[in-house]
């Protein structure tokens, strides 16, 4: 042994250490690879030795080589050996190597579990530290699962050094093993108040990261964080907390109100730019969440904008960049405040840094108004000229078009100007965005009727100068504009002044070098042009001219007939034959123009992009139904389509083959001509001698010399947009003068009567009238199109998919008991499953006990079982209380405690805050409901009438909209509200709605929340609710009362007021739905006296009300399905017209499911009953049907659930 050791240390003296290796590499610059491979060989030798010091040295060198890009995965096992060394020096190296090169695919990582566990519990804090650090880099789901409990224990280690590391690693563990979040969270929360600032900031970090992803879960922590924010002086921590608040405010506007003040204080006081920036960002988020209804926050906005201006003006590029970034956020909600800084932002367009210029461009988009659009675009055009040949120029181009076309050309007052801007943009060479310009030209020309004449003249000019644009078609996207130009000239040829000239321009041989799809449009529109020329000439009686133009077509069209592009070829040969026929008729002196023009009669109207989707399916048409019975022979059915498809492909390829070189083509052409000449039935393309008018001064005889200029010229006659800017200015000036005059006149008239306030020189947006009255045609929609906003949503949008998901799991997260925490120990012994649950419950219980003592010492212990739930309710209330009253609440005795604890009835007699309270209640109870639903359902009746009005209005506006929209957009429709409250019973005095919620703490209880609404003008009091118990379902009554006694409703109802009370029911079996009969008795008191009234009702316990929304992860879900002890059943519902998204939301909402996974139109969903039945669904949507396959541990429950679902869905 001793000898070995001696040998080892002697060996070591000859080994290279890391420094030697680095030096060696630097000395072997020429043959680095060779040197390193030599080193790796040495390292391999070293790794074979027993001496751990030698091994660790080798691993250290390997780590260095790994950074240089060499693969060291082969040494993974050696790394583990070094990790398990007992000496810290080596352990450290081992963990470093592991953290650098281990990843989820490293197979030996499984071997480390026990070693890491050992190190985590080492008495030496640095051993633990190094293990934690390493783990943070290579933690896998398996490691996370096995070590979660160990790390959680370390969060309460005596040394803050370990605590803070453990807290931070816990986040990684959550990510890899989400099930650990619940059990660990209470402890994590404790750490927010750790005495050590490092641990505290670590906890803030982790919760901040968690809350950013799912803010709603963490809303209850707001008061705690608020305290931390106002007390902390550590900027690092402050920034994190403020960021957290930024994520929370959108969910709770009241929180925002509370935050504004401390945040503005911080903005004023801090000198740290990072903190300032964070504060500004959060204030913006707050103001966005408050949006309207908060007029007195303009000061905060002003402050933010001012501070941002300082950032933007700073010489530091970083601050400038961030300033612009934040500015664009303000722009969305408060464009006016930003617009006043236009000068500064335009200045940023000149910045050397492209990223800053791009940010500034983003801002400009929102800053334009009718007043400054021309000016801004002019500036941008100057930048376009400067930015020759860069991607930045393309960016500018798209931005110009975006800016001008935004919200239906809202800001354009002069469309002539816009057309000329577009034409100017065509001078850009090498841009990728030709199609964008083309699309704009088409859109404007089609939709703005007044501009057509001008547009056509401009487009004719473009066609005439096509050689400039199309000079280099190969890499020139700009030739796309010719597509638009040709189409516009053809379609609106009646506006064309020099139609002949344009037609000739389109027939030039150069055109054949354009891409096929453009040529095709050329050919098609030539005929349109030709038709209109023909008509002109015939009407003018110029027969010769008419024949001449026919002749021109016949001469030039063959060049397109030879096109390699099928589309062009086909169109051209069709048209050629047509024109030849026309020529025949012309010879016979038959007037043809009328008939030719009839080919293109009628106007093409723009069609909205969504129009196709909106065509309603006619009643009685089932798109899924077979038109013919499907062939019974399944075999042939399978085969046939394949072969057909295959054949087609082959045909295609055969077709393509004969595309041979030019020579061959020329040869064939020659042969064909020969053949044609010999064929007496072939109408020759050369005109007959009679028709040849050689003496006519035809332009086609003059050879056209094309000048190919690489440098784009200013096209003569092309409009200069700048002129328009000047003109526009003059026009506006004139307008203003006129107005002034008028005003002066008025003034003169009014002089002496009263002194007028002089506001003549403030020109407001509305004052600018458009140059010509412009009607923008809205795109056409099919008749009785279905008005819906659904199609605006991308079903694949991940955020939309999250929408349901988020709502659901969060709803119960607070009520849910701590899930069983699966760790290594529990794997070994299933008996020890309970402890983690216990642990996390403990603090709650303690707290609760404490409170109880304060409130009421004499209360019995039997309510303990309800403790957790109550605590949660309180939590929500606390938050609300904290939010609703500015000074911290003084009264700790919540009025709720009395009835809640003493009996099974939970109610709130407090009148003052009833309104607000109710909202909170709902928030607590029916968290599943979407946000706006909450507001809605409260005043259901009002809402209904409003809805009616709204729909009427909408209808009205839509009718108008279909005709024409004056530079504006149509408004959107809100989502349909959903309420889980169903009608229980109603009479002229009172209306009852109810909702049933399962209770996870108790597997045989459900809570029924009933809202009582006083509809009369009388006072309702002494309400008592009684239910006829069944064997299975019983109402929980206070001790000592008999089964026939009713339960008093703990409040009275003044006229028009509603309030909610809760009743607890116990049940035995939950697999079937049940109905209970009941009666509400009450006393109506008014001026005339009081009467006793009764209202009967039937309380319906659906199976869905026994389900509790429980989030489930897809792997757990898969395991559940695999387990095989579930019963299966399925249903199919036809005639579903709502979107899949809505459908899922409906199932989630009404049946308490959560979405596990969703792929296209298929989703898996999960829920659990209060008695622990798992329910798994697979929902598939067909064309207009939905099929649901369900699996559940109880078949009766499943079939009942599916029946209920069928009912819900068939209502859709």
């Amino acid at each position, binding site marked *: 042994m001793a000898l070995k050791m001696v040998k080892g*240390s002697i060996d070591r003296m000859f080994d290279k250490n890391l420094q030697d290796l680095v030096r060696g590499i630097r000395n072997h610059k020429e043959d680095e690879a060779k040197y390193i491979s030599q080193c790796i060989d040495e390292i391999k030798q070293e790794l074979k030795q027993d001496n751990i010091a030698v091994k660790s040295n080798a691993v250290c060198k390997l780590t260095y080589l790994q*950074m240089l890009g060499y693969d060291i995965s082969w040494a993974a096992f050696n790394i583990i050996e070094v990790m398990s060394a007992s000496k810290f020096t080596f352990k450290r190296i081992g963990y*470093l190597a592991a953290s650098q090169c281990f990843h989820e695919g490293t197979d030996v990582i499984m071997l480390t579990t026990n070693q890491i566990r050992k190190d985590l519990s080492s008495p030496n804090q640095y051993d633990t530290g*190094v293990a934690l*650090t390493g783990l943070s*880099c290579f*933690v896998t789901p398996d490691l996370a699962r096995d070590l979660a409990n160990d790390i959680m224990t370390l969060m309460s280690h005596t040394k803050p050094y370990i605590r803070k590391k453990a807290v931070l690693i816990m986040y990684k563990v959550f990510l890899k093993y989400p099930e650990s979040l619940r059990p660990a969270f209470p402890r994590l929360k404790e750490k927010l108040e750790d005495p050590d600032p*490092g641990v505290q900031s670590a906890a803030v970090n982790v919760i901040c990261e968690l809350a950013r992803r799912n803010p709603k879960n963490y809303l209850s922590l707001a008061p705690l964080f608020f305290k931390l924010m106002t007390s902390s002086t550590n900027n690092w921590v402050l920034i994190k907390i403020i960021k957290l608040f930024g994520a929370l405010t959108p969910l709770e506007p009241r929180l925002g109100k509370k935050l504004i003040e401390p945040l503005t204080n911080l903005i004023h006081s801090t000198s740290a730019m990072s903190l300032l920036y964070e504060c500004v960002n959060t204030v913006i988020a707050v103001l966005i969440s408050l949006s309207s209804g908060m007029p007195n926050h303009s000061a905060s906005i002003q402050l933010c904008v001012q501070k941002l201006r300082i950032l933007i003006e700073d010489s530091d590029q*970083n601050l400038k960049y961030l300033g612009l970034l934040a500015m664009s956020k303000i722009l969305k909600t408060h464009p006016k405040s930003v617009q006043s800084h236009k000068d500064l932002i335009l200045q940023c367009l000149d910045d050397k840094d492209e990223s800053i210029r791009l940010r500034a461009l983003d801002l400009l988009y929102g800053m334009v108004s009718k007043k400054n659009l021309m000016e801004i675009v002019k500036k941008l055009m100057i930048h376009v000229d400067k930015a020759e040949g860069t991607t930045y120029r393309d960016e500018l181009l798209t931005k110009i078009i975006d800016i001008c076309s935004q919200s239906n050309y809202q800001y354009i007052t002069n469309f002539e100007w816009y057309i000329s801007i577009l034409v100017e943009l065509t001078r850009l060479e090498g841009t990728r965005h030709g199609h964008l310009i083309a699309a704009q030209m088409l859109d404007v020309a089609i939709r703005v009727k007044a501009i057509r004449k001008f547009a056509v003249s401009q487009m004719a000019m473009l066609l005439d100068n096509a050689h400039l644009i199309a000079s280099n078609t190969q890499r020139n996207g700009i030739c796309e504009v010719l597509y638009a130009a040709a189409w516009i000239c053809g379609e609106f040829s009646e506006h064309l002044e020099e139609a002949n000239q344009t037609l000739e321009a389109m027939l030039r041989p150069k055109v054949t070098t354009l891409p096929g799809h453009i040529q095709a449009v050329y050919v098609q529109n030539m005929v349109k042009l030709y038709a209109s020329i023909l008509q002109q000439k015939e009407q003018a009686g110029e027969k010769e001219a008419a024949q001449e133009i026919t002749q021109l077509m016949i001469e030039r069209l063959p060049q397109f007939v030879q096109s390699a592009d099928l589309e062009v070829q086909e169109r051209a040969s069709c048209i050629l034959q047509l024109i030849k026929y026309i020529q025949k008729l012309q010879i016979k002196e038959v007037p043809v123009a009328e008939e030719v023009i009839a080919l293109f009669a009628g106007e093409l109207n723009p069609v909205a992009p969504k129009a196709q989707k909106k065509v309603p399916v006619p009643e009685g048409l089932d798109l899924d139904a077979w038109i013919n019975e499907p062939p019974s022979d399944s075999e042939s059915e399978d085969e046939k389509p394949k072969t057909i498809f295959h054949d087609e492909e082959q045909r295609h390829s055969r077709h393509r083959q004969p595309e041979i070189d030019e020579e061959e083509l020329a040869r064939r052409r020659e042969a064909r001509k020969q053949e044609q000449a010999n064929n007496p039935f072939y109408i020759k393309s050369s005109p007959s001698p009679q028709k040849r008018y050689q003496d006519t001064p035809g332009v086609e005889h003059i050879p056209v010399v094309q000048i190919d200029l690489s440098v784009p010229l200013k096209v003569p006659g092309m409009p200069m947009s700048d002129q328009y800017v000047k003109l526009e200015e003059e026009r506006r000036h004139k307008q203003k003068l006129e107005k002034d005059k008028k005003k002066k006149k008025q003034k003169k008239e009014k002089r002496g009567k009263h002194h007028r306030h002089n506001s003549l020189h403030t020109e407001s947006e509305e004052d600018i009238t458009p140059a010509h009255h412009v009607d923008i045609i809205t795109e056409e929609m099919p008749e009785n199109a279905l008005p819906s906003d659904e199609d605006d949503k991308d079903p694949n949008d991940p955020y939309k998919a999250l929408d349901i998901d988020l709502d659901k799991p969060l709803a119960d997260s607070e009520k849910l008991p701590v899930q069983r925490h699966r760790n290594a120990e529990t794997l070994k012994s299933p008996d020890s499953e309970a402890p983690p649950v216990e642990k996390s419950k403990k603090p709650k219980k303690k707290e609760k006990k404490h409170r109880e003592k304060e409130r009421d010492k004499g209360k019995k212990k039997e309510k303990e079982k309800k403790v957790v739930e109550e605590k949660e309710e309180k939590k929500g209330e606390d938050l609300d209380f904290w939010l609703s009253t500015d000074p911290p609440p003084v009264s700790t005795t919540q009025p709720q405690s009395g009835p809640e604890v003493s009996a099974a009835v939970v109610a709130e007699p407090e009148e003052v805050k009833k309104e607000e309270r109710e909202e909170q209640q709902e928030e607590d109870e029916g968290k599943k409901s979407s946000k706006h639903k909450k507001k809605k359902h409260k005043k259901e009746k009002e809402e209904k009438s409003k809805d009616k009005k709204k729909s009427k209005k909408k209808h009205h506006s839509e009718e108008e909209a279909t005709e024409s929209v004056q530079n504006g957009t149509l408004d959107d429709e809100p989502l349909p509200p959903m309420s889980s409250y169903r009608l229980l019973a109603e009479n002229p005095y009172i209306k009852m709605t109810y909702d049933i919620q399962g209770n996870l703490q108790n597997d045989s209880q459900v809570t029924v929340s009933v809202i009582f609404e006083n509809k009369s003008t009388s006072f309702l009091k002494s309400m008592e609710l009684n239910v006829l118990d069944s064997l299975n379902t019983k109402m929980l009554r206070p001790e000592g009362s008999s089964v026939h006694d009713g339960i008093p409703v703990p409040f009275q109802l003044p006229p028009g007021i509603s309030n909610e009370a809760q009743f607890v029911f116990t049940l035995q079996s939950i697999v079937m739905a049940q109905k209970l009969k009941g009666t509400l008795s009450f006393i109506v008191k008014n001026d005339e006296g009081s009467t006793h009234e009764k209202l009967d009702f039937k309380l319906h316990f659906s199976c869905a009300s026994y389900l509790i929304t429980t989030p489930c992860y897809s792997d757990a879900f898969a395991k559940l399905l695999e387990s095989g002890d579930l019963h299966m059943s399925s249903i199919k519902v036809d005639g579903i017209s709502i979107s899949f998204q809505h459908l899922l939301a409906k199932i989630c909402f009404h049946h308490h499911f959560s979405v596990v996974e969703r792929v296209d139109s298929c989703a898996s969903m999960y829920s659990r009953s209060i008695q622990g039945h798992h329910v798994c669904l697979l929902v598939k949507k067909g064309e207009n049907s939905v099929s649901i396959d369900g699996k559940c541990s109880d078949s009766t429950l499943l079939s009942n659930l599916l029946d209920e679902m069928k009912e819900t869905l068939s209502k859709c």
Partner: protein
Amino acid sequence: MIHFILLFSRQGKLRLQKWYTTLPDKEKKKIVREIVQIILARHQKTSSFVDWKDLKLVYKRYASLYFCCAIEDQDNELLTLEVVHRYVELLDRYFGNVCELDIIFNFEKAYFILDEFIIGGEVQDTSKRSAVKAIEDSDMLQETVEEYMNKPAF
């Protein structure tokens, strides 16, 4: 959360890399190459922030060395610059007037310092003092072990 930290020279040679998300080696190499290219191509007087895929790169040059962090969309860029600066300060205090060569020859120390400062992509301790103390203490532990190894008890 910081996704990764890269240190590289003006010539584009990687000096240190720390990944807080686990990725296969191949992927890492590809990302490093791409990012080094992006950043070296930028002019000196431009802002320190680059949008890259769904992350933001925040970088700063100290002498011949670039320090680059990839952070998430909602993270604070200025704070990240402070993190980088704090790390440089820590290196400086440890090595005493740190230069690129210090990091090359003692690259494992540079990692240890980083590990004491940032863990799992989050700043571990905002106090410089406690980070330095942890490094020194663990070094002490290492030194004694090394001494012991150098004087084997035979």
